[in-house]
């Protein structure tokens, strides 16, 4: 296990507010179409609701769909797209040894919470009836939908991925670390084939409540990343993003093609006192700078729009001087799933050899005509800094 193995991305599954599938997402971005957002349903908060998706096509059994909350359906759907793209869907001989790392949160039953709160207000003493209401109102299947590891569990059940199953917790860093560990295991020969991804449903009150406590949300009018100012924040997204990572030799043996190569994944935890984010990101950049061909490279940033992290990241990206795109303007912020979504878009970019048009004040440069490398950043909204290098697989 001393010789490091090359890691390919052989499958991508992406659904966002822009559309279903990597191609639809790329086409939206490439046309320079405006962002898709909703500033009414959860006003004053702005969210990016999921594009129409026919869940039946990836989750044929209604009984399976009923046992999932939306975030799980989104993830299982995107995982199915990735497995199909990699040519391993429905192939038990491959799925049997396919490992899985999922970055996940959870989702509450808003109706039950609301009914209990209304009664608490009327009765004045919640303790006296909380147990009774919970016993009567909670639905066992929806408890399973709240559990973070049940996205992976549902992927095993619906798609038959059973090599192994791990779920990482902890917002954006969970996504970065999921990819980092998946990549490191394949590079070291601990795995041949790993499905890695995440799903996020930001169009719901319970998650808005968590972030509103921290004052982290964009309110009022939509504006692109880079234009939200000091009082700006996150417009939460709705997305499922999964990648099939594979040992190049394994992929070649079975005749699979690479969408891209994933060369480096870094993940750090700055203490985030003055200047720490910048120093961490600079250190991460310096660790790959020698491998970058500046004439053929660009940055896809996962900036959330929340300050001070967004400005700190942009200051360093400006120093680096490569063309920049902020996907958050278009697909919103998908927390655990954001990094994988950006890796998917980066893979599409290097595969096509070009960047999509700039779309906001923090985007910069036209991008080279023969793009071959994309640096993907993930400076999280409150903790964790990540970076990956995606390259054209030649």
């Amino acid at each position, binding site marked *: 296990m001393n010789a490091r193995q090359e890691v390919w991305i052989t499958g991508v599954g992406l659904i966002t507010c822009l559309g279903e599938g990597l191609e639809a997402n790329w086409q939206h971005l490439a046309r320079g179409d405006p962002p898709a957002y909703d500033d009414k349903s959860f006003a004053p908060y702005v969210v990016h609701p999921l594009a129409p998706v026919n869940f039946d096509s990836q989750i044929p059994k209604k009984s399976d769909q009923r046992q999932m909350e939306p975030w799980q359906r989104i993830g299982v759907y995107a995982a199915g797209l990735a497995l199909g793209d990699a040519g391993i869907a429905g192939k038990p001989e491959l799925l049997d040894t396919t490992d899985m790392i999922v970055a996940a949160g959870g989702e509450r039953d808003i109706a039950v919470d609301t009914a209990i709160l209304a009664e608490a207000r009327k009765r004045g003493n*919640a303790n006296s009836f909380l147990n009774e209401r919970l016993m009567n109102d909670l639905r066992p299947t929806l408890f399973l939908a709240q559990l973070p590891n049940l996205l992976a569990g549902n992927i095993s059940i619906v798609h038959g991925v059973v090599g192994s199953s791990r779920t990482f917790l902890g917002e954006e860093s969970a996504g970065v670390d999921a990819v980092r560990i998946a990549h490191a295991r394949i590079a070291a020969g601990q795995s041949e084939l790993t499905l890695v991804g995440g799903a996020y449903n930001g169009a719901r009150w319970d998650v808005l409540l968590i972030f509103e406590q921290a004052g982290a949300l964009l309110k009022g009018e939509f504006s692109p990343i880079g234009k939200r100012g000091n009082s700006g924040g996150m417009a939460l997204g709705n997305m499922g993003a999964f990648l099939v990572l594979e040992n190049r030799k394994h992929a070649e043996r079975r005749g699979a093609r690479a969408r891209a190569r994933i060369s480096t994944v870094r993940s750090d935890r700055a203490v985030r006192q003055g200047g720490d984010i910048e120093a961490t990101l600079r250190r991460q950049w310096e660790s790959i700078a020698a491998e970058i061909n500046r004439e053929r490279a660009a940055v896809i940033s996962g900036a959330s729009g929340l300050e001070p992290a967004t400005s700190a990241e942009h200051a360093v990206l400006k120093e680096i001087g490569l063309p920049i795109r902020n996907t958050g303007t278009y697909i919103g912020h998908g927390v655990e799933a954001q990094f994988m979504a950006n890796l998917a878009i980066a893979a599409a970019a290097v595969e096509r050899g070009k960047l999509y048009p700039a779309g906001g004040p923090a985007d910069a440069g036209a991008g080279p005509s023969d793009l071959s490398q994309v640096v993907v950043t993930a400076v999280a909204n409150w903790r964790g800094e990540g970076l990956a290098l995606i390259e054209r697989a030649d």
Partner: protein
Amino acid sequence: MTAETRDKLGRPVIAVTGIGVVTSLGVGKAANWSKLTGGVSGIRQISRFPTDWLRTTIAGTVNDVYRDDMSPADLSERVALLAGEEAIAEAAIGVKGHFPGPLFLAPPPLEIEWADRIKMAEMAPADADPAYPELLRVARNFAANRNAFKFGIIGENLAEKFGTQGSPISLNTACASGASAIQLGMEAIRRGECVAALAIGADASLTPESLVRFSLLSALSTQNDPPERASKPFSKNRDGFVLAEGAAALVLEDFDHAKSRGARVLGILEGVGEKSDSFHRTRSSPDGKPIIASMRNALADAGVAPDDVDYINAHGTSTPENDKMEHLGVSAVFGERIRGIPISSNKSMIGHTLTAAGAVEAAFTLLTLQNQRIPPTINHSVPDPAIVLDVVPNVARDAKVRRAISNSFGFGGQNVCLVLTLEPA
């Protein structure tokens, strides 16, 4: 350069140089081990909140650590901290506030607590329905909770306190989480990314809602009286697990690194295997194939045969389903010899510590190896004729234990098995 110690597959050998434990039996290894081998139960009537309307009114709570104002996140972090401090002190590694490796943590999933939700609802205008939009209007008054319910918060705080390196990883594989945390640490050392890692499983998240959720899945014992008799793994009258709290921490270290700094090696993590199940969200595949594969993968990873195993630390939850399937699984892996292999369940005394269980039981398995004494399966008065196993009934036993496995099987189909021994092979 001195010769490098390598395992049978040519990888670095994973030593354990520090162990810390907190359960309902007490704080620290010494208190836990004496009670565990004394057949003492930590299961009690719940006193933390009213239990009216609940079918299950007992749990294995960490009463020695709990204080009135602690949320599940606070308490889980506290037990993780206590276990981590004990493990790091024993390993005598690094300097205070600087642990020379990464953190792999299995915490409970966190959510906004009912107490906070109700406080927010009380602040909503009297003429408005206290629905979520109203809660959001007052949420900024709860800025003190700005990060309190984020899944990464316990890992973040522990990384800060212990000074672990890099991004702390928080993970969840349901009831296998603690074992998965250890596995991630083993893999990182085997890759040569680090010479040491801190693996912690911690779960102290007993609330009415957590109890009700498992109750509605019919997973919990309802034999509330007497509490200490409720958890009875492998017995005919078993009727569910007892929800419990606890934490364990292991300092994992490259064997050569441990030796070179003169550390005492407490045990070796020789192998780990996993396999997931696609059968059902809460039930195992009826043929037991995934749990069988997790054990076989672990033995293969350790480079040993079933005959080399002297003791099985069972997942042994005391649910009708788990214990039946575990019996099927170990019978398939060990064949006829299973009748002669002691297999006991720590959960008979400490209950099911959920995301901590894999780590707590790995810690107890290491103590079993060190002390050459097997903790019993208590409450074993009505054996199940369908389960013919030596469950070390009711009384601890001295035995020659060279190598053990520890099983962890989770809802959602996540199965992990660890192989532990005393010395490098």
